[in-house]
């Protein structure tokens, strides 16, 4: 999570509010649990989050409830942890995106479980059981998990520090866009280069990151490596490098 220890000093964006003239002051008041500030926060961000929910394809009859529940949980989280996100709008939109994605994934899983249970019930007489004790739920609630994710994040951050020294501003921009899964044609447009040139640059960037990653991962301790593999487990990746192919690799844009 993004944190700031200087909320009091940053003034943030200007607000059209007599009580809280800037977003930073609004956030400080929210952290104090002031009812008026929480009300202002809802008025300011509910329309944005509803709009974002619409763009994410969430049904109109679910949007209001989803946005309200999200804001409710976020405010409680911020107040109880006394955490101030550095960029509140980005933080809220990212939280909504995560919730929408999790909701979508859970509904698909629920549907698949129900379907499977119904089919199997006809053969085996098994009952449909609640999902509250799924393997994922149990593993996610293990206290060690967040620590592992933290180790993996630290490791990735160190890899980024290695790469940063050798990358130009355009390459960093490209890397960020790639991280966001922006289409390559759009990245090319943003960089002001042709699609072909962007493909070449992306290929070179991939090679550079590849080299740095091989060196970096070889320096990791076994437990750090395990944590990193766990971090990527759902993507099904393997951090064990394979021998290089003999023929020259073709230039290709993956994004």
């Amino acid at each position: 999570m993004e944190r700031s220890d200087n909320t009091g000093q940053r003034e943030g964006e200007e607000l059209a509010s007599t009580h809280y003239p800037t977003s930073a002051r609004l956030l400080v008041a929210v952290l104090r649990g002031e009812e008026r500030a929480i009300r202002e926060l809802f008025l300011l961000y509910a329309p944005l989050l509803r709009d974002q929910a619409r763009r994410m394809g969430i049904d109109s009859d679910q949007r209001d409830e989803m946005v309200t529940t999200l804001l409710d949980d976020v405010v409680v989280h911020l107040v109880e942890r006394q955490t101030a996100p550095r960029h509140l709008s980005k933080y809220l939109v990212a939280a909504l995106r995560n919730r929408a994605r999790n909701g979508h994934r859970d509904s698909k899983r629920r549907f698949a479980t129900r379907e499977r249970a119904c089919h199997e019930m006809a053969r085996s007489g098994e009952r449909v059981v609640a999902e509250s004790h799924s393997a994922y739920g149990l593993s996610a609630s293990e206290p060690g998990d967040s620590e592992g994710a933290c180790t993996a994040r630290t490791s990735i951050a160190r890899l980024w520090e290695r790469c940063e020294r050798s990358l130009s501003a355009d390459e960093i921009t490209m890397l960020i866009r790639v991280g966001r899964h922006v289409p390559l044609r759009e990245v090319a447009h943003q960089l002001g280069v042709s699609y072909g040139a962007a493909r070449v640059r992306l290929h070179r960037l991939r090679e550079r990151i590849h080299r740095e990653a091989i060196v970096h991962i070889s320096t990791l301790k076994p437990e750090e490596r395990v944590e990193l593999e766990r971090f990527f487990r759902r993507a099904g990746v393997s951090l064990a490098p394979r021998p290089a192919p003999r023929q020259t690799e073709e230039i290709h844009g993956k994004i």
Partner: protein
Amino acid sequence: MARFDDRTLEELMAAVGKEAELADHDLAHQDERFLFWLANDLRAGLDLEQRFSDERAAAEFAQRVVTRLEVRSAERRLPLRQLRERGASVRATLAHAVPAASRERCATILDLAVAAGSGRELWDEPCDRWLELPDDVPSGRYVALRVAGDSMAPVLGPREVILIELDASPRVDDLVVARLPDQSHVVKRVASMKGSTIELASFNRDYESIFVSRDPSPVVGTVIARFTRE
């Protein structure tokens, strides 16, 4: 040179890209400014009906969130404990039973429910049940009371038992038992202490706050534990 497979490299690139994004404060700030502008623009674009609807929703939302925060705070400070109850060694009114119970590390339980909503007289009630004090509670003058009414729900439900430390100095957010001017007693949360007035609030928003004078202090004691109902 050894190589990662494409999938691994793609995931690593995405993860490194995310780290780069977090480290790029200018870019993050631009995104934030855009979203903030969009939030204001969307808010300004609401028609009158939507604006009224949002105002109503925001007021309800803020009230609900504040209550939720208060409830969670109280539940954290007063975790539910197992009730250990026994017969009283001395049968007397509450006023006389308190010192005797204190000597045996107990607190008198009043079968008369302290009305969480309407309030009732306490001190002249006879009590024949004692609560054994939990080990972590220091010796002192305590009274245990059974709550009635739903004004303090969901923290205190009907028939739940609360342990009150007598003569304690309450602070804002504490749950207290207070004597009202009509001599009745209530259990409430101290919402504020401004000037010569104490605001006693309920968790259940259907009940309005009670304002009482600080002098003489209406607070009988502070709730320090709650116990599961029998």
